[in-house]
């Protein structure tokens, strides 16, 4: 099992009514993730958002260039972000989570978009579909356990 602390995000003042007055930070379920291209080059994003509302995994547009990942032919799909459509291209990559107690790595076809993403989205296809996930809201911890669909490797740190 992999565990990730929710990560703090600053709250714009005044804080919304859903939060206690003068709240400075809210916590969001995020994880550090490494994305690897076919040639072994990679980039490490410190905070990617576990997003059950996103059907795809999406990284910033320039990531394939950085990691040497070959884009698949355009499928004509788009990501509508805050009302604006942006092209969405896909590539085969590997993704890796590393925690203090375990690491896992698996292959996935993920999306890349020029939408102004502030963090990669860890959506269903290519990520969350491979894990049984528990959002421990009180503790601010996300637990991920690879499930029967998980196509990669899991290593426990002893």
């Amino acid at each position, binding site marked *: 099992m992999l565990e990730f602390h929710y990560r703090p*995000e600053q709250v714009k003042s005044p804080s919304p009514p859903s939060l206690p007055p003068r709240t400075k930070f809210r916590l969001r379920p995020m994880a550090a993730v490494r994305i690897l291209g076919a040639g072994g080059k990679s980039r490490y994003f410190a905070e990617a958002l576990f997003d059950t509302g996103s059907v795809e995994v999406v990284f910033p547009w*320039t990531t394939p260039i950085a990691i040497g990942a070959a884009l698949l032919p355009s499928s004509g799909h788009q*990501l509508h972000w805050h009302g604006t459509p942006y092209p969405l291209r896909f590539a085969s990559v590997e993704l890796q989570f590393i925690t*203090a*107690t375990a690491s896992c790595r698996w292959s996935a076809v993920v999306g890349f978009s020029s939408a102004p993403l502030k963090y990669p*989205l860890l959506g269903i296809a290519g990520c969350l579909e491979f894990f049984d996930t528990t959002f421990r809201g009180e503790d601010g911890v996300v637990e991920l356990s690879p499930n029967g669909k998980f196509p990669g490797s899991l290593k426990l740190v002893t």
Partner: protein
Amino acid sequence: MSTVKRPLPPLTEYETNRDQFTIEQLEPYNGQWVAFSMDGKRIVAAAPDLLELDQKVVAAGENPENVALQFIDLSPDISPGGGQFG
């Protein structure tokens, strides 16, 4: 439904150190991608986009594969999460 309190995992070294940065220290980088050292203790470089950030990381004598990339947004709007795919 389990009521057993489970222990919290430890914060990573990166998280522990990264959380020490104050708003004032991050303000100059608001709206930019930042490359932190992997231990979260220092900022290696910052740039408006990731390609320029890569160049600055290399210019700083560091390997772009061995930095932690993070976008700094100190006044985020409420995000509904996800996106509409079509």
